[in-house]
């Protein structure tokens, strides 16, 4: 039911002013099931964000197709979906929550109003949506910050509000575009652990983009390594470092284990190989 399939998907951006068109993604295949935490890793320009935009429904594939459950995902405005085209096509919708690198919170709303915003859009009554929002704010450790202004929070707290907001909507999957990329190293590590806890508690599908090899290895159940020009998936690894972490709750121990180091070397070799090929 909750399976995401990406089948032979290519995305070609037309060149501006008669320039050459750019192939951002070339024949990508990917399958995600309930409870998968897929991490996409690769150098800049390898099409990670394009893949996320496709899954979110912000853009349409040039070739191939994506399905989530029984519906096809395309970059369609919602007015067209359901009525004219039918339920089998969906654009961006509440079943796929998104968290960006720079928070996309609404500064005119406070923390709890931001968190409940999705439920408000769907017409859920105030009492219920407050309760749900409070629940997820507690999950990310912000139970004492309901009335705070979002623009006065630290970067880490803003991202936690963003994650709580996406979760409050109870989506089938969470799309995270370098959500920890702009944070300092310590905050970043604590949020990695928080994300793993959230993932285990909610058992959501997650698609996570990062530049950091360590972060990718620690979080992923499946690691997808991508290469640029044209953007494509070159390697996929099934990993269980996140399970090791959740068992022992010691990220440093997991990261210093011989298997982790060996895996990191292997992945770095792939990515550096790409860079050499480009240079």
């Amino acid at each position, binding site marked *: 039911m909750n399976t995401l399939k990406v089948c032979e998907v290519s995305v070609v951006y037309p060149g501006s002013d008669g320039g050459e068109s750019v192939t951002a993604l070339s024949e990508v295949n990917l399958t995600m099931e309930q409870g998968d935490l897929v991490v996409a890793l690769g150098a800049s320009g390898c099409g990670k964000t394009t893949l996320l935009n496709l899954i*979110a*429904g*912000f853009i349409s594939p040039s070739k191939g197709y994506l399905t989530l459950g029984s519906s096809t995902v395309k970059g369609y*405005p*919602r*007015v067209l979906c359901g009525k004219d085209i039918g339920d089998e096509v969906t*654009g*961006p*919708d*509440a079943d*796929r*929550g*998104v968290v*960006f690198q*720079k928070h*996309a*919170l*609404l*500064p*005119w709303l406070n923390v709890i109003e931001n968190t409940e*915003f*999705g439920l408000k*859009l*769907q017409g859920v009554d105030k009492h219920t949506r407050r309760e749900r929002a409070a629940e997820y704010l507690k999950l990310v450790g912000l139970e004492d910050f309901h009335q705070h*202004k979002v*623009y006065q929070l630290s970067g880490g707290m803003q991202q936690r509000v963003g994650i709580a*907001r*996406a979760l409050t*909507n109870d*989506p089938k999957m969470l*799309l995270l575009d370098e959500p920890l990329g702009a944070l300092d190293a310590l905050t970043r590590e604590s949020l990695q652990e928080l994300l793993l806890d959230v993932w285990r508690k909610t058992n959501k599908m997650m698609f996570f983009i990062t530049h950091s090899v360590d972060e990718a290895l620690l979080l992923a159940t499946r690691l997808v390594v991508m290469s640029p020009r044209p953007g494509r998936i070159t390697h996929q690894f099934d990993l269980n470092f996140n399970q090791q972490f959740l068992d022992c709750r010691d990220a440093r121990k997991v990261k210093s284990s011989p298997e982790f180091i060996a895996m990191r070397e292997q992945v770095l070799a792939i990515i550096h190989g790409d860079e050499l090929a480009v240079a």
Partner: protein
Amino acid sequence: MTSMTKSMNASSTGSPNKKGADSKPDAEPQMVDSKEERESAAASVSLLDKLQLNIKKMTAPSAVQSGEYFGTPGAGDSRLIGVCSTLFFIALWAIATEGGFIKPIFLPSPLDVVQRLIDITVDGFAGATLVEHLNASLVRIFGAFILACLIGIPLGITIGCNRVFRGIFDPLIEFYRPLPPLAYLPLIIIWLGIDESSKVTLIFLAMLSPIVLSARAGVTSVRIEQIQVAYSMGATPWQVITQVIARGAMPDIMTGMRIAIGFGWTTLVAAEMVAAERGIGFMVLNASEFLVTDVVIAGIIVIGIIAYCFDLLMRYLEAKLIPWKGYN
């Protein structure tokens, strides 16, 4: 040979010493000067010196206060200086007029203007008191302002969000925007006559374009991530426009509203040229026809003060309504 080089060396090393000796007597009189200055300052502190000292104190670079950053150009409070400079110009005005340097028909004295201001408040001028004139003008300006906001803000947002609307309204607004209101005033009189509606329409048109353009600019200033996240939480396009874009455009719209009010005051006098019986602009025009200069100046001062007060109100509203401005 050796003696020659020796002597050359001696002369070359000697010259800087000489220079040093030369510069010493130069420095000494300076020191004496400053000593004398200090002595004279201590002996007789004249009013001018005191003033100089105070000006120095007021304009001297001050230490960075908490909450400020070092190096911000023009940092610090300028209110005291503002009050002083205002008083200075009023004093200059008083000296020039009371001293008889300028004839009252060109520039009456401040006291005369204040006296006239009281007179027209109590007895009136050109058939109405100052309050009645002011009331007529304020009704026109704020009537036009409310109308311009009610039409301009939704129109600007729609133009920003909709390709078809942009195509229809963009050329129209861009065409009439740079036209001076006086240029199309005759046309409005031909169409609407000479009663209130033509006056309000003229002010309304002057105010509409900055509001529309600022609302439209506000739409494009909303971050695409905020819009995409809203869609990903199940928002309809209508909800995105009303709950994300319209709110996110508020800082720009507020700026546009401030500019519009300014345009309103500048257009007011033109509007009240047309068969007005009341209005502060009409009062000034009427006074100028009869060379009653003190009423002209009184009217100008009243307009200036009211416009300034309104701008202060808008700034206060801005701080209250969009405290997040700049954090987006």
